[in-house]
Protein backbone atom coordinates (compact mmCIF):
# COMPACT_ATOMS: atom_id res chain seq x y z
CA UNK A 1 0.00 0.00 0.00
CA UNK A 2 1.44 3.37 -0.99
CA UNK A 3 1.52 6.38 1.29
CA UNK A 4 -1.25 8.18 -0.59
CA UNK A 5 -3.77 5.36 -0.13
CA UNK A 6 -6.01 4.70 2.85
CA UNK A 7 -6.36 1.19 4.32
CA UNK A 8 -9.13 -1.13 3.03
CA UNK A 9 -10.73 -0.99 6.49
CA UNK A 10 -11.50 2.69 5.96
CA UNK A 11 -14.09 1.80 3.30
CA UNK A 12 -17.74 1.90 4.38
CA UNK A 13 -18.97 -1.70 4.78
CA UNK A 14 -21.99 -1.03 2.58
CA UNK A 15 -19.82 0.18 -0.31
CA UNK A 16 -17.41 -2.77 -0.05
CA UNK A 17 -20.35 -5.21 0.11
CA UNK A 18 -22.06 -3.55 -2.88
CA UNK A 19 -18.84 -3.79 -4.89
CA UNK A 20 -18.41 -7.49 -4.01
CA UNK A 21 -22.06 -8.30 -4.82
CA UNK A 22 -21.93 -6.46 -8.16
CA UNK A 23 -18.69 -8.18 -9.15
CA UNK A 24 -20.15 -11.61 -8.26
CA UNK A 25 -23.33 -10.77 -10.21
CA UNK A 26 -21.30 -9.77 -13.26
CA UNK A 27 -19.34 -13.04 -13.16
CA UNK A 28 -22.52 -15.10 -12.65
CA UNK A 29 -24.29 -13.23 -15.46
CA UNK A 30 -21.43 -13.89 -17.83
CA UNK A 31 -21.34 -17.55 -16.77
CA UNK A 32 -25.07 -17.96 -17.45
CA UNK A 33 -24.75 -16.31 -20.86
CA UNK A 34 -21.87 -18.62 -21.76
CA UNK A 35 -24.09 -21.67 -21.12
CA UNK A 36 -26.68 -20.55 -23.68
CA UNK A 37 -26.42 -22.34 -27.06
CA UNK A 38 -24.15 -20.41 -29.37
CA UNK A 39 -25.42 -18.87 -32.54
CA UNK A 40 -24.52 -21.24 -35.35
CA UNK A 41 -23.92 -18.25 -37.64
CA UNK A 42 -24.75 -20.17 -40.75
CA UNK A 43 -26.73 -17.33 -42.32
CA UNK A 44 -24.28 -15.12 -44.06
CA UNK A 45 -25.51 -11.53 -44.30
CA UNK A 46 -25.52 -9.89 -47.75
CA UNK A 47 -22.11 -8.63 -48.82
CA UNK A 48 -21.46 -4.91 -48.44
CA UNK A 49 -20.21 -2.85 -51.37
CA UNK A 50 -16.45 -2.54 -51.48
CA UNK A 51 -16.84 1.25 -51.14
CA UNK A 52 -18.66 0.70 -47.83
CA UNK A 53 -15.91 -1.61 -46.62
CA UNK A 54 -13.30 0.97 -47.63
CA UNK A 55 -15.22 3.69 -45.85
CA UNK A 56 -15.31 1.62 -42.67
CA UNK A 57 -11.57 1.04 -42.96
CA UNK A 58 -10.64 4.74 -43.02
CA UNK A 59 -7.97 4.05 -45.62
CA UNK A 60 -6.72 0.76 -44.20
CA UNK A 61 -7.94 -1.31 -47.16
CA UNK A 62 -5.37 -4.09 -46.83
CA UNK A 63 -6.13 -4.62 -43.14
CA UNK A 64 -9.93 -4.57 -43.52
CA UNK A 65 -9.79 -7.00 -46.46
CA UNK A 66 -7.93 -9.54 -44.37
CA UNK A 67 -10.13 -9.00 -41.32
CA UNK A 68 -13.19 -9.49 -43.52
CA UNK A 69 -11.73 -12.79 -44.72
CA UNK A 70 -11.33 -13.96 -41.12
CA UNK A 71 -14.92 -12.89 -40.45
CA UNK A 72 -16.13 -14.79 -43.52
CA UNK A 73 -14.10 -17.82 -42.56
CA UNK A 74 -15.78 -17.95 -39.15
CA UNK A 75 -19.15 -18.74 -40.78
CA UNK A 76 -20.23 -22.33 -40.69
CA UNK A 77 -16.81 -23.52 -39.52
CA UNK A 78 -17.64 -25.25 -36.28
CA UNK A 79 -16.72 -28.57 -34.77
CA UNK A 80 -20.27 -29.89 -35.10
CA UNK A 81 -20.28 -29.57 -38.87
CA UNK A 82 -19.47 -32.81 -40.64
CA UNK A 83 -18.99 -30.89 -43.88
CA UNK A 84 -18.19 -27.24 -43.24
CA UNK A 85 -19.52 -24.55 -45.59
CA UNK A 86 -22.10 -26.79 -47.26
CA UNK A 87 -25.00 -24.82 -45.78
CA UNK A 88 -23.69 -21.43 -46.76
CA UNK A 89 -25.58 -19.34 -49.26
CA UNK A 90 -23.00 -19.41 -52.10
CA UNK A 91 -24.23 -16.40 -54.10
CA UNK A 92 -23.83 -14.34 -50.93
CA UNK A 93 -20.48 -15.93 -50.19
CA UNK A 94 -19.28 -15.07 -53.69
CA UNK A 95 -20.55 -11.52 -53.17
CA UNK A 96 -18.41 -11.26 -50.06
CA UNK A 97 -15.34 -12.70 -51.76
CA UNK A 98 -15.79 -10.29 -54.68
CA UNK A 99 -16.15 -7.33 -52.33
CA UNK A 100 -13.03 -8.30 -50.42
CA UNK A 101 -11.09 -8.78 -53.63
CA UNK A 102 -12.24 -5.37 -54.88
CA UNK A 103 -11.11 -3.83 -51.59
CA UNK A 104 -7.59 -5.25 -51.91
CA UNK A 105 -7.14 -6.72 -55.42
CA UNK A 106 -3.60 -7.83 -54.63
CA UNK A 107 -4.60 -10.05 -51.71
CA UNK A 108 -4.54 -13.75 -52.56
CA UNK A 109 -6.71 -14.74 -49.58
CA UNK A 110 -10.17 -14.55 -51.28
CA UNK A 111 -9.13 -16.67 -54.27
CA UNK A 112 -7.21 -19.07 -52.05
CA UNK A 113 -10.36 -19.59 -49.98
CA UNK A 114 -12.55 -19.83 -53.09
CA UNK A 115 -10.39 -22.40 -54.88
CA UNK A 116 -9.08 -24.46 -52.01
CA UNK A 117 -11.91 -24.35 -49.47
CA UNK A 118 -15.28 -23.28 -50.80
CA UNK A 119 -14.94 -25.00 -54.21
CA UNK A 120 -14.49 -28.36 -52.49
CA UNK A 121 -18.09 -28.36 -51.39
CA UNK A 122 -19.75 -31.72 -52.09
CA UNK A 123 -22.73 -29.85 -53.51
CA UNK A 124 -21.77 -29.79 -57.20
CA UNK A 125 -23.82 -26.73 -58.04
CA UNK A 126 -22.20 -24.70 -55.28
CA UNK A 127 -18.77 -25.93 -56.32
CA UNK A 128 -19.47 -24.87 -59.92
CA UNK A 129 -20.54 -21.41 -58.77
CA UNK A 130 -17.29 -21.02 -56.90
CA UNK A 131 -15.16 -22.28 -59.79
CA UNK A 132 -16.91 -19.86 -62.09
CA UNK A 133 -16.11 -17.03 -59.66
CA UNK A 134 -12.42 -18.05 -59.69
CA UNK A 135 -12.46 -18.07 -63.50
CA UNK A 136 -14.06 -14.62 -63.72
CA UNK A 137 -11.58 -13.15 -61.28
CA UNK A 138 -8.68 -14.85 -63.07
CA UNK A 139 -9.61 -13.05 -66.28
CA UNK A 140 -9.17 -9.70 -64.52
CA UNK A 141 -5.52 -10.37 -63.72
CA UNK A 142 -4.29 -13.63 -65.29
CA UNK A 143 -0.61 -13.14 -64.48
CA UNK A 144 -1.19 -12.92 -60.74
CA UNK A 145 -4.21 -15.25 -60.36
CA UNK A 146 -3.34 -18.28 -62.51
CA UNK A 147 -2.55 -20.40 -59.43
CA UNK A 148 -6.17 -20.43 -58.36
CA UNK A 149 -7.43 -21.33 -61.81
CA UNK A 150 -4.96 -24.23 -61.87
CA UNK A 151 -6.58 -25.42 -58.64
CA UNK A 152 -10.00 -24.92 -60.17
CA UNK A 153 -9.01 -27.06 -63.17
CA UNK A 154 -7.99 -29.92 -60.88
CA UNK A 155 -11.21 -29.67 -58.89
CA UNK A 156 -13.26 -29.63 -62.08
CA UNK A 157 -11.54 -32.78 -63.30
CA UNK A 158 -11.32 -34.84 -60.14
CA UNK A 159 -14.25 -33.69 -58.02
CA UNK A 160 -16.81 -32.64 -60.61
CA UNK A 161 -15.55 -35.15 -63.19
CA UNK A 162 -16.13 -32.42 -65.78
CA UNK A 163 -13.26 -32.79 -68.21
CA UNK A 164 -14.40 -30.08 -70.68
CA UNK A 165 -14.58 -27.52 -67.84
CA UNK A 166 -11.15 -28.55 -66.57
CA UNK A 167 -9.70 -28.23 -70.08
CA UNK A 168 -11.32 -24.82 -70.50
CA UNK A 169 -9.66 -23.56 -67.33
CA UNK A 170 -6.31 -25.13 -68.21
CA UNK A 171 -6.41 -23.65 -71.70
CA UNK A 172 -7.25 -20.22 -70.27
CA UNK A 173 -4.05 -20.25 -68.21
CA UNK A 174 -2.01 -20.85 -71.37
CA UNK A 175 -3.99 -18.36 -73.40
CA UNK A 176 -4.16 -15.39 -71.04
CA UNK A 177 -0.94 -15.46 -69.00
CA UNK A 178 1.86 -13.38 -70.50
CA UNK A 179 4.28 -13.22 -67.58
CA UNK A 180 7.43 -15.24 -68.45
CA UNK A 181 7.76 -16.30 -64.80
CA UNK A 182 4.59 -18.41 -65.01
CA UNK A 183 6.01 -21.98 -64.81
CA UNK A 184 5.83 -24.21 -67.85
CA UNK A 185 3.78 -26.89 -66.04
CA UNK A 186 1.06 -24.29 -65.51
CA UNK A 187 1.08 -23.30 -69.19
CA UNK A 188 0.95 -26.94 -70.17
CA UNK A 189 -1.77 -27.71 -67.69
CA UNK A 190 -4.14 -28.89 -70.41
CA UNK A 191 -1.78 -31.77 -71.21
CA UNK A 192 -1.58 -32.86 -67.64
CA UNK A 193 -5.34 -32.57 -67.26
CA UNK A 194 -5.70 -34.97 -70.19
CA UNK A 195 -3.14 -37.42 -68.79
CA UNK A 196 -4.49 -40.39 -66.93
CA UNK A 197 -3.19 -39.48 -63.46
CA UNK A 198 -5.14 -39.54 -60.23
CA UNK A 199 -5.96 -36.55 -58.06
CA UNK A 200 -3.09 -37.13 -55.67
CA UNK A 201 -0.48 -37.32 -58.41
CA UNK A 202 -1.81 -34.19 -60.05
CA UNK A 203 -1.97 -32.31 -56.73
CA UNK A 204 1.56 -33.40 -55.89
CA UNK A 205 2.90 -32.14 -59.21
CA UNK A 206 1.12 -28.82 -58.83
CA UNK A 207 1.85 -28.16 -55.17
CA UNK A 208 5.38 -29.53 -55.49
CA UNK A 209 5.93 -27.10 -58.36
CA UNK A 210 4.55 -24.20 -56.39
CA UNK A 211 6.65 -25.00 -53.33
CA UNK A 212 9.81 -25.57 -55.40
CA UNK A 213 9.40 -22.27 -57.25
CA UNK A 214 9.18 -20.42 -53.92
CA UNK A 215 5.70 -19.09 -54.70
CA UNK A 216 4.30 -20.39 -51.42
CA UNK A 217 6.20 -18.56 -48.74
CA UNK A 218 3.52 -18.16 -46.10
CA UNK A 219 3.94 -20.71 -43.30
CA UNK A 220 0.18 -20.96 -42.67
CA UNK A 221 -0.49 -21.70 -46.34
CA UNK A 222 2.34 -24.23 -46.58
CA UNK A 223 0.98 -26.01 -43.47
CA UNK A 224 -2.55 -25.97 -44.87
CA UNK A 225 -1.42 -27.44 -48.19
CA UNK A 226 0.71 -30.14 -46.53
CA UNK A 227 -2.30 -31.17 -44.44
CA UNK A 228 -4.49 -31.19 -47.55
CA UNK A 229 -2.06 -33.50 -49.34
CA UNK A 230 -1.99 -35.85 -46.35
CA UNK A 231 -5.79 -35.90 -46.22
CA UNK A 232 -5.94 -36.62 -49.93
CA UNK A 233 -3.42 -39.40 -49.59
CA UNK A 234 -5.40 -40.91 -46.72
CA UNK A 235 -8.67 -40.69 -48.65
CA UNK A 236 -7.24 -42.34 -51.74
CA UNK A 237 -5.60 -45.09 -49.64
CA UNK A 238 -8.95 -45.87 -48.05
CA UNK A 239 -10.65 -45.83 -51.46
CA UNK A 240 -8.08 -48.30 -52.82
CA UNK A 241 -8.61 -50.67 -49.84
CA UNK A 242 -12.33 -50.73 -50.54
Amino acid at each position, binding site marked *: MSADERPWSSLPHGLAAAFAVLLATQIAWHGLRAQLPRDARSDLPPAPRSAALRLAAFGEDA*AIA*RLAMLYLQSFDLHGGNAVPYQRLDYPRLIGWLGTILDTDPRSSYPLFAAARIYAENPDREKARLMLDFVYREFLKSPNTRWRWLADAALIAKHRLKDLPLARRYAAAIDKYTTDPTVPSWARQMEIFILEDMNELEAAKIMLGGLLASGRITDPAEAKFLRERLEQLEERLRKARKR
Partner: protein
Amino acid sequence: MHAATILARNVLLEARRSGLPWLGLAGVAAAVVLAAFLSQVALTESLPLQAALVAALLRACGAFLVAVTVASSTAREVADKGLELMLSLPLSRTTQYLGRWMGHAASAVLVALAFSLPLLLWSAPVAVAHWALSLALELALIAALALFFSMAFGQLLPAVAATAGFYLLARALGTIQSIAQGSLLEASRVQRAAQWLIDAIAFVLPRLDATTRTDWLLYGAPQAGDYAAALAGLVLYTLLLLAAGLVDLRRRNL
Protein backbone atom coordinates in the same frame (compact mmCIF):
# COMPACT_ATOMS: atom_id res chain seq x y z
CA MET B 1 20.03 28.07 -26.95
CA HIS B 2 17.19 29.49 -29.01
CA ALA B 3 14.02 30.14 -27.00
CA ALA B 4 11.87 27.95 -29.28
CA THR B 5 14.26 25.05 -28.81
CA ILE B 6 14.10 25.42 -25.02
CA LEU B 7 10.31 25.41 -25.19
CA ALA B 8 10.37 22.36 -27.43
CA ARG B 9 12.66 20.57 -25.00
CA ASN B 10 10.28 21.32 -22.12
CA VAL B 11 7.31 20.01 -24.09
CA LEU B 12 9.25 16.85 -24.92
CA LEU B 13 10.15 16.42 -21.26
CA GLU B 14 6.50 16.83 -20.29
CA ALA B 15 5.48 14.18 -22.82
CA ARG B 16 8.05 11.79 -21.37
CA ARG B 17 6.84 12.38 -17.82
CA SER B 18 3.17 12.11 -18.77
CA GLY B 19 3.59 8.40 -19.53
CA LEU B 20 3.59 8.68 -23.34
CA PRO B 21 6.50 6.21 -23.73
CA TRP B 22 4.73 3.59 -21.62
CA LEU B 23 1.45 4.08 -23.43
CA GLY B 24 3.30 3.74 -26.74
CA LEU B 25 4.94 0.50 -25.61
CA ALA B 26 1.59 -0.81 -24.37
CA GLY B 27 0.11 0.03 -27.80
CA VAL B 28 2.91 -1.89 -29.56
CA ALA B 29 2.46 -4.90 -27.27
CA ALA B 30 -1.34 -4.93 -27.67
CA ALA B 31 -1.13 -4.65 -31.48
CA VAL B 32 1.47 -7.41 -31.78
CA VAL B 33 -0.44 -9.77 -29.46
CA LEU B 34 -3.76 -9.17 -31.25
CA ALA B 35 -2.19 -9.68 -34.68
CA ALA B 36 -0.41 -12.85 -33.52
CA PHE B 37 -3.71 -14.18 -32.17
CA LEU B 38 -5.62 -13.46 -35.39
CA SER B 39 -2.85 -14.88 -37.56
CA GLN B 40 -3.40 -18.24 -35.86
CA VAL B 41 -6.76 -18.57 -37.57
CA ALA B 42 -5.55 -17.38 -40.97
CA LEU B 43 -5.21 -20.13 -43.58
CA THR B 44 -2.96 -18.07 -45.82
CA GLU B 45 -1.30 -14.63 -45.81
CA SER B 46 -0.63 -15.00 -42.09
CA LEU B 47 2.43 -12.75 -42.31
CA PRO B 48 0.76 -10.01 -44.39
CA LEU B 49 -2.22 -10.23 -42.03
CA GLN B 50 0.02 -9.52 -39.05
CA ALA B 51 1.83 -6.69 -40.81
CA ALA B 52 -1.43 -5.10 -41.98
CA LEU B 53 -3.13 -5.31 -38.60
CA VAL B 54 -0.15 -4.11 -36.60
CA ALA B 55 0.40 -1.21 -39.01
CA ALA B 56 -3.27 -0.18 -38.99
CA LEU B 57 -3.56 -0.42 -35.21
CA LEU B 58 -0.31 1.40 -34.53
CA ARG B 59 -1.14 4.16 -36.99
CA ALA B 60 -4.47 4.76 -35.25
CA CYS B 61 -2.87 4.42 -31.82
CA GLY B 62 -0.11 6.90 -32.75
CA ALA B 63 -2.64 9.45 -34.01
CA PHE B 64 -4.71 9.10 -30.84
CA LEU B 65 -1.74 9.36 -28.47
CA VAL B 66 -0.27 12.41 -30.18
CA ALA B 67 -3.63 14.21 -30.39
CA VAL B 68 -4.51 13.56 -26.74
CA THR B 69 -1.01 14.45 -25.52
CA VAL B 70 -1.06 17.80 -27.33
CA ALA B 71 -4.65 18.61 -26.35
CA SER B 72 -4.24 17.68 -22.68
CA SER B 73 -0.94 19.53 -22.36
CA THR B 74 -2.36 22.69 -23.92
CA ALA B 75 -5.67 22.48 -22.02
CA ARG B 76 -3.80 22.14 -18.72
CA GLU B 77 -1.65 25.14 -19.50
CA VAL B 78 -4.69 27.21 -20.42
CA ALA B 79 -6.52 26.13 -17.24
CA ASP B 80 -3.51 26.84 -14.98
CA LYS B 81 -2.98 30.24 -16.61
CA GLY B 82 0.47 29.00 -17.60
CA LEU B 83 -0.17 30.17 -21.13
CA GLU B 84 -0.82 33.75 -19.96
CA LEU B 85 2.33 33.65 -17.86
CA MET B 86 4.31 32.49 -20.88
CA LEU B 87 2.84 35.24 -23.04
CA SER B 88 4.01 37.83 -20.50
CA LEU B 89 7.63 36.77 -21.12
CA PRO B 90 9.72 38.71 -23.64
CA LEU B 91 9.16 36.09 -26.31
CA SER B 92 7.17 36.54 -29.47
CA ARG B 93 3.96 34.58 -29.86
CA THR B 94 5.38 33.01 -32.99
CA THR B 95 8.39 31.68 -31.07
CA GLN B 96 6.15 30.30 -28.34
CA TYR B 97 3.73 28.64 -30.74
CA LEU B 98 6.42 27.12 -32.95
CA GLY B 99 8.48 26.01 -29.95
CA ARG B 100 5.49 24.24 -28.52
CA TRP B 101 4.75 22.53 -31.85
CA MET B 102 8.39 21.53 -32.32
CA GLY B 103 8.32 19.73 -28.97
CA HIS B 104 5.13 17.88 -29.82
CA ALA B 105 6.41 17.10 -33.33
CA ALA B 106 9.63 15.70 -31.85
CA SER B 107 7.67 13.36 -29.58
CA ALA B 108 5.48 12.42 -32.58
CA VAL B 109 8.61 11.48 -34.56
CA LEU B 110 9.83 9.32 -31.67
CA VAL B 111 6.43 7.61 -31.46
CA ALA B 112 6.54 6.96 -35.23
CA LEU B 113 10.02 5.48 -34.93
CA ALA B 114 9.02 3.22 -32.03
CA PHE B 115 5.87 2.09 -33.86
CA SER B 116 7.78 1.28 -37.04
CA LEU B 117 10.39 -1.00 -35.49
CA PRO B 118 8.07 -3.99 -34.84
CA LEU B 119 7.04 -3.95 -38.51
CA LEU B 120 10.54 -5.09 -39.43
CA LEU B 121 9.40 -8.53 -38.25
CA TRP B 122 7.17 -8.88 -41.31
CA SER B 123 8.21 -6.34 -43.94
CA ALA B 124 11.32 -5.33 -45.85
CA PRO B 125 13.42 -2.56 -44.25
CA VAL B 126 13.00 -0.26 -47.27
CA ALA B 127 9.20 -0.52 -47.11
CA VAL B 128 9.24 0.04 -43.34
CA ALA B 129 11.49 3.09 -43.79
CA HIS B 130 9.02 4.60 -46.27
CA TRP B 131 6.12 3.88 -43.92
CA ALA B 132 8.00 5.26 -40.89
CA LEU B 133 8.90 8.56 -42.55
CA SER B 134 5.33 9.00 -43.72
CA LEU B 135 3.97 8.18 -40.26
CA ALA B 136 6.40 10.65 -38.65
CA LEU B 137 5.18 13.45 -40.92
CA GLU B 138 1.55 12.41 -40.46
CA LEU B 139 1.89 12.50 -36.65
CA ALA B 140 3.67 15.85 -36.85
CA LEU B 141 0.66 17.10 -38.85
CA ILE B 142 -1.68 15.75 -36.15
CA ALA B 143 0.40 17.56 -33.54
CA ALA B 144 -0.12 20.80 -35.50
CA LEU B 145 -3.82 20.03 -35.91
CA ALA B 146 -4.36 19.25 -32.23
CA LEU B 147 -2.36 22.32 -31.20
CA PHE B 148 -4.49 24.51 -33.46
CA PHE B 149 -7.77 23.19 -32.04
CA SER B 150 -6.49 23.18 -28.44
CA MET B 151 -5.40 26.81 -28.66
CA ALA B 152 -8.66 27.74 -30.36
CA PHE B 153 -10.99 25.95 -27.92
CA GLY B 154 -8.86 25.94 -24.76
CA GLN B 155 -10.60 22.79 -23.52
CA LEU B 156 -9.72 19.13 -23.81
CA LEU B 157 -12.96 17.58 -25.04
CA PRO B 158 -13.74 19.95 -27.96
CA ALA B 159 -10.08 19.90 -29.03
CA VAL B 160 -9.87 16.09 -29.09
CA ALA B 161 -13.27 15.74 -30.76
CA ALA B 162 -12.42 18.27 -33.48
CA THR B 163 -9.01 16.70 -34.12
CA ALA B 164 -10.48 13.19 -34.32
CA GLY B 165 -13.30 14.31 -36.60
CA PHE B 166 -10.94 16.17 -38.90
CA TYR B 167 -8.49 13.27 -39.03
CA LEU B 168 -11.11 10.62 -39.74
CA LEU B 169 -12.72 12.77 -42.43
CA ALA B 170 -9.34 13.32 -44.09
CA ARG B 171 -8.71 9.56 -44.04
CA ALA B 172 -12.11 8.68 -45.50
CA LEU B 173 -12.61 11.54 -47.92
CA GLY B 174 -11.11 9.73 -50.93
CA THR B 175 -13.64 6.92 -50.49
CA ILE B 176 -16.49 9.36 -49.87
CA GLN B 177 -15.60 11.14 -53.11
CA SER B 178 -15.58 7.90 -55.09
CA ILE B 179 -18.95 6.90 -53.62
CA ALA B 180 -20.38 10.29 -54.55
CA GLN B 181 -18.99 10.03 -58.10
CA GLY B 182 -20.30 6.49 -58.48
CA SER B 183 -23.87 7.60 -57.89
CA LEU B 184 -23.69 10.42 -60.42
CA LEU B 185 -25.16 8.50 -63.36
CA GLU B 186 -28.71 9.53 -62.63
CA ALA B 187 -27.95 12.17 -60.09
CA SER B 188 -30.48 14.75 -59.04
CA ARG B 189 -29.52 18.36 -58.37
CA VAL B 190 -29.25 17.65 -54.67
CA GLN B 191 -26.86 14.78 -55.33
CA ARG B 192 -24.79 16.94 -57.65
CA ALA B 193 -24.68 19.67 -55.04
CA ALA B 194 -23.58 17.12 -52.43
CA GLN B 195 -20.82 15.95 -54.71
CA TRP B 196 -19.61 19.49 -55.33
CA LEU B 197 -19.66 20.10 -51.60
CA ILE B 198 -17.58 16.98 -50.97
CA ASP B 199 -15.13 18.02 -53.70
CA ALA B 200 -14.94 21.49 -52.17
CA ILE B 201 -14.19 20.04 -48.73
CA ALA B 202 -11.49 17.86 -50.30
CA PHE B 203 -9.70 21.01 -51.49
CA VAL B 204 -9.10 22.16 -47.93
CA LEU B 205 -8.27 18.80 -46.37
CA PRO B 206 -5.02 16.80 -46.54
CA ARG B 207 -5.11 13.48 -48.47
CA LEU B 208 -4.36 11.27 -45.48
CA ASP B 209 -5.66 8.19 -47.29
CA ALA B 210 -2.68 8.46 -49.65
CA THR B 211 -0.11 8.53 -46.85
CA THR B 212 1.36 5.87 -44.51
CA ARG B 213 -0.28 3.14 -46.58
CA THR B 214 -0.24 -0.41 -45.34
CA ASP B 215 0.09 -1.57 -48.99
CA TRP B 216 3.67 -0.35 -48.95
CA LEU B 217 4.49 -2.86 -46.23
CA LEU B 218 2.75 -5.73 -48.01
CA TYR B 219 3.49 -5.16 -51.68
CA GLY B 220 6.69 -3.10 -51.64
CA ALA B 221 7.66 0.55 -51.38
CA PRO B 222 5.58 3.03 -53.42
CA GLN B 223 6.57 4.75 -56.66
CA ALA B 224 8.95 7.62 -55.95
CA GLY B 225 6.62 10.20 -57.53
CA ASP B 226 3.54 9.07 -55.58
CA TYR B 227 5.51 8.92 -52.37
CA ALA B 228 7.04 12.36 -52.82
CA ALA B 229 3.60 13.80 -53.61
CA ALA B 230 2.11 12.22 -50.48
CA LEU B 231 4.89 13.58 -48.25
CA ALA B 232 4.79 17.00 -49.89
CA GLY B 233 1.06 17.13 -49.17
CA LEU B 234 1.72 16.39 -45.49
CA VAL B 235 4.42 19.03 -45.19
CA LEU B 236 2.32 21.64 -46.99
CA TYR B 237 -0.71 21.03 -44.79
CA THR B 238 1.37 21.07 -41.60
CA LEU B 239 2.73 24.48 -42.60
CA LEU B 240 -0.81 25.64 -43.37
CA LEU B 241 -1.99 24.53 -39.92
CA LEU B 242 0.93 26.27 -38.24
CA ALA B 243 0.15 29.45 -40.15
CA ALA B 244 -3.53 29.19 -39.18
CA GLY B 245 -2.59 28.65 -35.54
CA LEU B 246 -0.29 31.68 -35.57
CA VAL B 247 -2.97 33.85 -37.18
CA ASP B 248 -5.42 32.76 -34.49
CA LEU B 249 -2.99 33.32 -31.60
CA ARG B 250 -1.68 36.68 -32.80
CA ARG B 251 -5.17 38.04 -33.33
CA ARG B 252 -6.30 37.16 -29.84
CA ASN B 253 -6.35 39.58 -26.93
CA LEU B 254 -4.64 37.62 -24.19
